[in-house]
């Protein structure tokens, strides 16, 4: 057999020229973006948009493809727990503070500064430079939320390409990553833009109550239905059907994952831009306790808030008491938690902080997954060597190994079915499967201890 010859010099783990070029080009794009954001004179005109877009897309893709394609296909999380950006070093803190600061400014202050100048017909430069794209899609000028959506989508797409390269040995990851990229690009970006262009109501097909709580708020529903727009009924019906029919049905058949790691934009960003931070999720039992308290409290909060708003709207029973409740929810949960903390804290607490501790949609899906679903992660007999890769890389902070090493199938409410535990396992122990509901969480392999004896052991 003729063997291919390979150099015996191993690849240099440091950045090579191509990676450096990629990073530099990306840097130019980001600098232009910041200049526009801070209203610098030079950053106006459409050349800025195209240069910025080119810099971010070409630089980002060059860097990430080079980084992953220079290694053979497989799991190579080299240095991830030591790198300053991904291991909460100085770089991680810096990144966390920048993103959090950016989000805070953008969510709470940017809009206002735009408004105060609105009298003079002033529009922030950042929106101006996005006009070409906005005109193309929506036939109108950009506003700050269009800019936000566009940036979010670009992040998911570029980092999605990175994820495709990183996990190219795993077909599950390839199909899933394509799905989240498609859902963000098509459903969360193109569809709403087209609807606007056609003078139809605002429509985000991949978000519904309780995550998109506004979808069931009486004022929104009323404006929607009385708008006279031809697709208003469809948009309303879609929301209702997704919440009441599709959610339980799909979760029964496939588990929570159909939404959280195939469709949702928050999950989409976490599994693309956030992928390098997944190991930062806290695996302790204490964190699990906090998670359960928080996520179900927020679910109760959103239910009570929705009910109060409706009572006020229909019967005026509460004398407007629902207004402050709704405001608090919108500020604390809708903006601060899901936006600012949810993304800003990626480099500090991992990529799924919002999904794990906050999202009411995840709470509902999780309950269905736990009590009535065909989904589980099967453990392969007694093959586990307790290495800990699965637990380390579980973005939801599930101690997967605890189950795997005692041969127990995993049926946790919080599992979003990202499949990374199965991908990183060096011994082929874990598989995400849909099967008969009766036999979930059974012990597929037993040493000697009976299930009863196992229960005596405290986690």
């Amino acid at each position, binding site marked *: 057999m003729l063997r291919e010859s390979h150099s015996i010099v191993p690849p*240099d783990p440091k950045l090579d020229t191509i990676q450096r070029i990629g990073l530099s080009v990306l840097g130019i794009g980001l600098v232009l973006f910041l200049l526009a954001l801070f209203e610098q004179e030079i950053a106006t005109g459409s050349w800025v948009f195209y240069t910025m877009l080119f810099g971010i897309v070409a630089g980002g893709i060059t860097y990430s493809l080079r980084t992953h394609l220079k290694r053979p296909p497989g799991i190579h999380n*080299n240095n991830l727990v030591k790198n300053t950006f991904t291991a909460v070093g100085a770089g991680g803190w810096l990144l966390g503070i920048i993103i959090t600061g950016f989000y805070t400014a953008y969510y709470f202050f940017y809009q206002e500064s735009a408004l105060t100048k609105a009298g003079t017909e002033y529009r922030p430069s950042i929106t101006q430079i996005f006009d070409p794209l906005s005109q193309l899609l929506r036939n109108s000028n950009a506003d700050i939320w269009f800019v936000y959506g566009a940036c979010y989508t670009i992040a998911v797409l570029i980092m999605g390409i990175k994820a495709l390269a990183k996990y190219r040995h795993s077909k599950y990851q390839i199909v899933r990553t394509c799905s989240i990229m498609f859902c963000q690009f098509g459903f969360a970006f193109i569809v709403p833009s087209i609807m606007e262009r056609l003078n139809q109501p605002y429509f985000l097909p991949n978000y519904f109550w309780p995550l998109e709580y506004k979808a069931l708020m009486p004022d929104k529903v009323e404006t929607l239905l009385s708008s006279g727009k031809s697709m208003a009924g469809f948009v309303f019906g879609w929301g209702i059907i997704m919440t009441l029919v599709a959610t339980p049905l799909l979760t029964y058949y496939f588990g929570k994952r159909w939404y959280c790691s195939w469709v949702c934009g928050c999950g989409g960003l976490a599994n693309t831009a956030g992928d390098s931070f997944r190991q930062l999720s806290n695996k302790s039992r204490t964190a699990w306790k906090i998670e359960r308290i928080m996520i179900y409290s927020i679910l109760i909060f959103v239910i009570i808030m929705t009910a109060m708003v409706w009572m006020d709207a229909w019967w005026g029973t509460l004398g407007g008491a629902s207004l402050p409740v709704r405001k608090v929810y919108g500020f604390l949960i809708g903006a601060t938690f899901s936006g600012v903390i949810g993304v800003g804290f990626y480099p500090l607490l991992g990529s799924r902080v919002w999904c794990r501790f906050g999202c009411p949609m995840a709470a509902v899906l999780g309950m269905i997954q736990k009590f009535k679903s065909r989904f589980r992660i099967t453990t392969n*007999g*007694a*093959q586990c060597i*307790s290495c800990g*890769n699965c637990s380390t890389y579980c973005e939801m902070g599930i101690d997967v190994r605890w189950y795997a090493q005692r041969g127990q199938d995993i049926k946790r409410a919080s599992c979003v079915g990202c499949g990374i535990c199965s991908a990183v396992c060096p011994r082929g122990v874990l598989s995400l499967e849909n099967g008969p509901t009766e036999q979930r969480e059974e012990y597929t392999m037993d040493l*000697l201890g009976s299930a009863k004896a196992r229960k*005596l052991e405290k986690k």
Partner: protein
Amino acid sequence: MQPIIIIGNGIAGVTAAREVRKLDSQVPILIISGETDYHFSRTALMYIFMGHMKFKHTQPYEDHFWKENKLDLKRAWVEKIDHHSNSIILQGGEKLGYSHLILAVGSTPNKFGWPGQDLPGVQGLYSKQDLDELEKNAVGAKHAVIAGGGLIGIEMAEMLITRGIGVSFLVREKNFWGSVIPEEEAMMIEDHIHEHHVDLRMGDELDSIHAGDDGKVSHIVTKAGEKIECSIVGLTAGVRPNIDWIKEGSEVETDRGILVDNHFRTNLPNVWSIGDCAQLRTPPKGRRPIEAVWYVGKLQGAFVAANICGDPQDYNPGIWWNSAKFFDIEYQTYGTVMPDPQDGEKTFFWKAPDKHITIRINYRENDLAVTGVNVFGIRHRHQVWEKWLSDEAKITDVLSQLAGANFDPEFFNQYEDEIIAHWNHDNSEQVTKTVGKGLFSTLLTKINLFKAN
């Protein structure tokens, strides 16, 4: 009441402690180890070095686990066993009494008396301390030599390569891991090792190690007479039971390992031994007296616990299984597959063209009963193979239901059709596929995956 003392907080000792605790909620249990404060997964050492995990991540239980399950821990080295007074003596002289003593002291790397084997920069890879040493030796290193082509050797090569350190890998055998896997699989692994830029030298051995002016390793010379410059030498020519101190400091009967009966009793009363360091006087059929792998330590821990807690059980480990990963290629085996088929055995082998994917099923010539399987690059279900092997299923039936054993993630390419076609091409007894992949289909193989408890 004197505690049950377990020496060694590896997988064997810790499993024994946990299983005793499940059977007896009161008896005091003390686990002693000199290596680390808490149990960690030795198999994960490489991932710490490569920066996939921190040391903390390799500890399977949170620190509160031990207290809550009333398992006492002590960090100390044990030096002597005084069985007349049912006690052990620690380094520093402290004496502790036991009701039962379990020796689960693991292995230590083999050294074969190579000249220069104790120079700074020369090391094995077994303990946390070895890892710390490698971390030091790797600073500024350009090239390393690894001597011994087993599983730890290839892990060490992978570790060093990720730091950009070149590796010359000396493997005595003609084929890689040739004492365990057949030639076709070995060739594939060798190709893959080359793909990872390792200077693999098959059929060559370490002869001597030499120091430079600074007293540290500067180069080695191979049996073939070649000189290789290096600042690290990894000795990975297997492991042996870590029992030198037991030979000196006790009357426990030993051979290569600590001799035990099939209840894991040593020659001394209330003294037991399990895991890498134990040597069975009469191993179960088809098994070796010392099996230094993770799974065996875990099983033996469970058996010794039952035996100590008054539920005597003869050691019955069931079918042999094992798994490993060679750089990016996963490997699983169930049953026995020797490098060459045994008497009366035939072998069926298939390899995906241009891919690192193979399957080999060995079966008996007379009744076609399967005896073992090797899979590389495909994951297979443990329980399904356990059932097929213990039922002595015919290879033709196994092939027709093969997808039922497939444990790859969803959407992965499946090769059962090609595998069956390959069989049908070479054999007169034709096979058709009857079962698909997935949990629902697997249940069609009439295998009860789930043990009712």
